[in-house]
């Protein structure tokens, strides 16, 4: 492919390093899911291609596979658009404002055309200081909107590109205020959401510059796309790992109420973003978790799980439930009391998730069940007698590995009584016997054979339960039938010493020299 020759005549100084890289990039895209596309898809940032107001004057490109020539062209156009903006900003007097808006609009169009906007070209041409100037107080809404939109897309890409927005942050935050028009505030929130999605460092900058309170306030109204964008931006802002922001958020006046209101009534897309906020609140802040658990939120989460079939909504709702169960013992001990309606409701929706086709739902639902099964004896009985167990048994033999591991946790937890002090926990013989009779042992022996340390450990631990706890000394025979001895003997030459000792210990204890002699 003609790489250098025609280009070298046309290239101007600015693009000499940019052009080649961009061209290569675009070429790779055309083949498979290229590395850059993969990265851009996976990022917690979002490109704005259609304006907040539903601005229809930008035809969204049908195909995003730009050829080399088009790529060069785009970069060239971007550079000149920035030049235009530069002179427009320098202008004074009548018509200056319109000139600025036109220049901004042109730049914005170029930055919204494709999946990979010419950000590098824009930055190299010096767009940021100009855009910051365009954000100054007193500027028209149109100007603010276009400038914020440009910044949004510049921030949607690679880390260094997002970081370039640093000078613009204080102004973007300022325009979140209640005096700003809604579209402007929303576009600024979007840009800030991208910045927050970059990483901890930028999040801390935003928090120290006071981004949280205005964004939180934007989440309070009932209607409008602004609420949704603000919720998304907040979820990026509080995602930590420092729990401070999450704790601060739940303390903002009206936030808890808004969260509950949206979970109860909002349309699915908004409920989704709010659910993600709850995910981070419950995963990071014990304070927030405590508050949430004492509110109606669990009931609302259960209702959403029961009513919706949108994977996008179910994932954060399920996870919020999981985090609340895992994060605060109050949840299982006081709210999800066995026999109460809400508890039945929870088990029911978890069963629904186990039955779903989606891997994430099955895995995380099993996780939540395992934590409930780690509660009191009554909790274990409740799950044991529910619809969940036959499903779990089936999943243990047929599901993908990561789901099987979680299922193993549930089943094992059902068989041991709550930990009470030192020494080995007591078995719940009834559950153990029944589950083994229904064929779960082979699934556990399979885990013993796996290369995953955690899974192997679970398998060995359950095997021990069987060896120890099956009545009439049946345990060893059952384990042998499932090739358990074979599976455990593999560990003699295994590099993990703990597993080796565990396996050897079991074999020595239960399959010693006199094993099977009285047959």
């Amino acid at each position, binding site marked *: 492919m003609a790489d250098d020759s025609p280009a070298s005549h046309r290239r101007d100084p600015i693009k000499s390093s940019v052009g080649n890289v961009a061209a290569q990039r675009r070429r790779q895209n055309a083949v498979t899911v290229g590395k850059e596309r*993969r990265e851009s*898809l*996976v990022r*917690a940032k*979002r*490109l704005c291609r259609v304006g907040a107001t539903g601005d229809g004057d930008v035809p969204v490109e049908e195909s995003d596979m730009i050829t080399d020539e088009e790529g060069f062209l785009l970069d060239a156009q971007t550079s000149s658009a920035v030049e235009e903006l530069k002179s427009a900003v320098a202008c004074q007097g009548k018509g200056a404002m319109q000139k600025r808006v036109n220049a901004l609009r042109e730049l914005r169009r170029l930055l919204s055309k494709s999946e990979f906007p010419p950000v590098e070209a824009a930055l190299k041409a010096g767009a940021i200081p100009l855009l910051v100037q365009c954000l100054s107080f007193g500027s028209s809404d149109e100007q603010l909107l276009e400038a914020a939109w440009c910044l949004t897309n510049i921030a949607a890409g690679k880390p260094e590109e997002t970081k370039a927005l640093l000078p613009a942050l204080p102004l973007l935050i300022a325009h979140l205020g209640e005096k700003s028009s809604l579209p402007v505030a929303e576009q600024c929130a979007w840009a800030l959401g991208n910045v927050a999605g970059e990483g901890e460092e930028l999040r801390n900058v935003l928090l120290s510059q006071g981004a949280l309170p205005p964004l939180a306030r934007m989440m309070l109204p009932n209607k409008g796309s602004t609420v949704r964008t603000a919720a998304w931006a907040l979820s990026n802002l509080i995602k*930590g*790992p420092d729990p401070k922001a999450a704790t601060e958020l739940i303390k903002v006046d009206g936030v808890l109420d808004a969260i509950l209101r949206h979970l109860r009534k909002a349309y699915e897309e908004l409920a989704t973003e709010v659910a993600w906020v709850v995910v981070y609140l419950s*995963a*990071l802040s014990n304070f927030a978790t405590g508050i949430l658990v004492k509110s109606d939120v669990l009931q609302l989460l259960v209702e959403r799980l029961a009513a919706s079939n949108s*994977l*996008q909504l179910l*994932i954060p709702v399920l*996870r919020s439930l999981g*985090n609340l*169960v*895992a*994060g605060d013992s109050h949840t*299982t001990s006081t709210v999800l009391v066995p026999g109460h309606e809400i508890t039945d409701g929870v088990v029911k929706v978890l069963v629904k998730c186990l039955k779903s086709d*989606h891997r*994430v739902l099955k*895995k995380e639902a099993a996780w939540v069940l*395992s*934590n409930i*099964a*780690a509660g009191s004896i009554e909790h*274990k009985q409740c799950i044991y007698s529910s619809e969940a167990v036959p499903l779990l048994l089936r999943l243990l033999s047929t599901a993908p590995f990561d789901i099987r591991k979680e299922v193993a*946790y549930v089943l*094992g937890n059902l068989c*041991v009584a709550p*930990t009470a002090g030192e020494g*080995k*926990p007591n078995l719940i013989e009834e559950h153990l016997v029944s589950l083994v009779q229904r064929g779960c042992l082979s699934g556990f022996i399979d885990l013993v*054979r*796996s*290369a*995953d*340390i955690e899974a192997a450990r679970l398998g060995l*631990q359950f095997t*021990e*339960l069987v060896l120890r706890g099956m009545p009439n000394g049946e345990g060893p025979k059952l384990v*042998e039938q499932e090739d358990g*001895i*074979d599976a455990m*003997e*593999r560990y003699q*030459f*295994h*590099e*993990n010493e703990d597993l080796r*000792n*565990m396996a*050897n*210990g*079991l074999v*020595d*204890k239960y399959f*010693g*020299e006199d094993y099977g002699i009285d*047959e």
Partner: protein
Amino acid sequence: MAMVVDYKHESSFPYWTSVCRRFEPDSPFFSSGNLERELLAKQVALDLTEDERNQLEKMIDNDARSVFCPIVGCGARLTSLEDFEDHYAARHTASCSVCSRVYPTSRLLSIHVSEAHDSFFQAKVARGYAMYECLVEGCGLKFKNYKGRQQHLVDKHKFPTSFDFFNKAHPSKKKRLKNQQKRRMHKKDEETSSKMEVENETIDGLVSAVSKLSTSDSSPSNISFGRRNARGLTFVPRSIQPPREKK
């Protein structure tokens, strides 16, 4: 019947305890859910096809899923946990055709065969040659008796004291019954010939057994690779082995 059960490991076994498990938001546990979130959000805007989604999920899964074979001395890199089973079956199940014990490398298998089933080996031992090789590949040291080698493994190579090369595998039920039958049958004959069965081996037993050799099952007829029930087949190269291959 009233054998003393070994309680050596009792106190140190990490019994199953039911505990609540909590994960940080950036824990790998949540990564597939996080991925779904971003893919679903960008689906419309970026026109993601079904194929691309599957490709992406697979790529991310594989990154997380690759694993190294945990058998000592192997360290092979496997792209998935499913691969591990295949790898293990192909590489680490060298089994002895005489007594069905399974070893993870062919070298260990052949050491076992010499030490447990080869009368020539025993004869040399009886005459004082250093026949017991160190089990660690590359070490090269040899010892005059089993105990000496055992001590070397513990001292030099940090093997656990409970490690016992001889007493490793526990034969299948079928084999055990066969052993018991044999023992009853041979009771009338040399009682000690049954001591060739590695189960009850002691060093002294070995030496005395050498002097009372019976020719029944003392030489390995063949070595087979693959699972135990492939016992009896002569060496079958991997490419021809039954299950996963096409033909």
